[in-house]
């Protein structure tokens, strides 16, 4: 029997949209995967040689970059944040659309072009630093794992960099979007060495590509 493959999927936002795409490409998890009370982290699939793991989005990239999982699905925000050299993102799955933006309090906006140092709360310190560096500003990042929207009102940071899909969360917390950093969609990611040495990975990439092409045609 060939060595087992591990497919990493993220908890939350992207997963519901990803499952039909995965199914179309022949990756179907066992029923226990959909059982909310099940505490397992590893699940079987209808393919004998493949297991599914469900982890946090940032960890999907880490597992795949290190070759612990060979293939996975994650937002392009995570791919850009890590910029892992051993990670490929060969297929844009066109799901999980949103964008990454800078936001600040609606009342009392500081003027950016006269400031050389900014304090920013974000889950994405690398992207944030790169974005502001390109504008000649040193961004001092406060790494948070969620709920950055409350950081400005509590004085933790003057601005935040976060994912925006509808903009409702920003509005509710008295923030306005001031700069668009990048559009985000979910990507199929694969480990470099696995793609080059295991023909099954290339086949999976082709299957996802074909699924995307079919969806484009239907649209």
């Amino acid at each position, binding site marked *: 029997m060939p060595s087992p493959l591990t497919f990493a999927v993220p908890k939350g936002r992207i997963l519901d949209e990803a499952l039909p795409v995965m199914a179309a490409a022949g990756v179907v998890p066992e029923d226990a995967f959909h059982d909310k009370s099940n505490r397992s982290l590893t699940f079987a699939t209808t393919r004998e040689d493949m297991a599914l793991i469900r982890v946090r989005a940032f960890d999907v990239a880490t597992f795949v970059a290190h070759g612990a999982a060979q293939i996975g699905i994650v937002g392009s925000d995570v791919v850009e944040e890590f910029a892992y050299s051993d990670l*490929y993102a060969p297929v844009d799955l066109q799901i999980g659309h949103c964008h990454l933006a800078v936001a600040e309090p609606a009342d009392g906006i500081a003027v950016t072009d006269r400031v050389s140092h900014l304090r920013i709360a974000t889950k994405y310190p690398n992207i944030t630093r790169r974005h502001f560096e390109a504008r000649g500003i040193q961004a001092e990042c406060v790494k948070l794992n969620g709920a950055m929207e409350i950081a400005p009102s509590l004085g933790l940071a003057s601005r935040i960099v976060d994912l925006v899909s509808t903009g409702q969360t920003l509005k509710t917390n008295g923030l306005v979007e001031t700069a668009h950093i990048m559009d985000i969609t979910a990507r199929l990611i694969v480990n470099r060495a696995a793609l*080059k040495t295991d023909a099954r990975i290339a086949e999976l990439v082709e299957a996802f590509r074909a699924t995307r092409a079919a969806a484009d045609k239907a649209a």
Partner: protein
Amino acid sequence: MNRSTDDLLPIGLEDRLPQQAAAVTRIMRAALTAMDSFGYDRVRPPLVEFEQSLGQRMHGIDTRRMVRFTDPESLRTMALRSDMTVQVGRIAATGLADAPRPLRLCYGGEVAVLQADQLDPARQRLQIGAELIGNDGVEAASEIVSVALAALERAGARNISLDLTLPDIVDVLADQAFPLKADDIASVRRELDTKDAGGLAQVPGGEAYLPLLYAAGPFDEAIATLSRIDAGGALASRIEGLRQIVDKIGTRARVTLDPSERHGFEYQSWFGFTLYAGDARGALGRGGSYAILGPDEPAVGFSLYVDPMLEAVGDEAGEQRPIVFLPVGHDPETAQRLREEGWRTRAALSNSCDAKALGCSHQLVDDSPAPL
């Protein structure tokens, strides 16, 4: 501070204990012997050099991650070598500038960086390699691939896989066939690096480069796909070159092509390759064509790294070698004769020494070794 933290090694640095040290030695010797058998002469450059000479011999070398310090003698900045290829380039351009070409040199030694790679914590590595200087044509590239495969085979690697690339393909295509604005070249490269089709399509002019992403995979199919890209003949000679190189590899390795692969190819020109084997998760080595700056001399070469090779070969590969226990009062001449015959001996210092506990497989009884 307590003793246990005093003795910690810095992250990314480790001791090789006997079993692993033996495996490393065996791999290094096997690889160097293979290179030697192809007529490559070994050179031993120093561990430390001036930063400037390590930094400017080839394109794209970054000295930022090197361990650097000021030389109290010359007051210039020195650096610990992080890649021996550059040193061999310097030797070829200076001490051996007048040696007949093509010049075949090989080397093996430790290299170090101040900051490790994101995915690989090692800050010290054992690099083994060979360089063929004075030619970067198809024949030279073919020879260097063959030497690299021989070195891996001799070291015990199985299921070798070779991934070919054309490191300068974006420059070649951007020149005429698929023009790009200077600012966009870096973006196209970055998107190709992650194989991000979505991102590539968003760069102005990037769409033309999409076929490169699909021309990757098993060599025969991938090269056919690459040949169908209409680049006004810009790629024809490169494609022909790759075909000739692959013809000579035969069944020694599984060959794949990924024309836009650039990772680890900072200074390579038209041709590059990455070596994988067995169960090792990472690449075992890389090679390709490049230019030695200064004399602007063409060259091809490759480097292997022992750590991933250990993963591919395993440190058990050498069978437990027999050791003869020499009891107190043994005859020294008999012991010497055994050593000359190739036995390893381990002598008792007192009667309390125990043969088994000391890992011996035999014991000297009368004049000959008897199994324990």
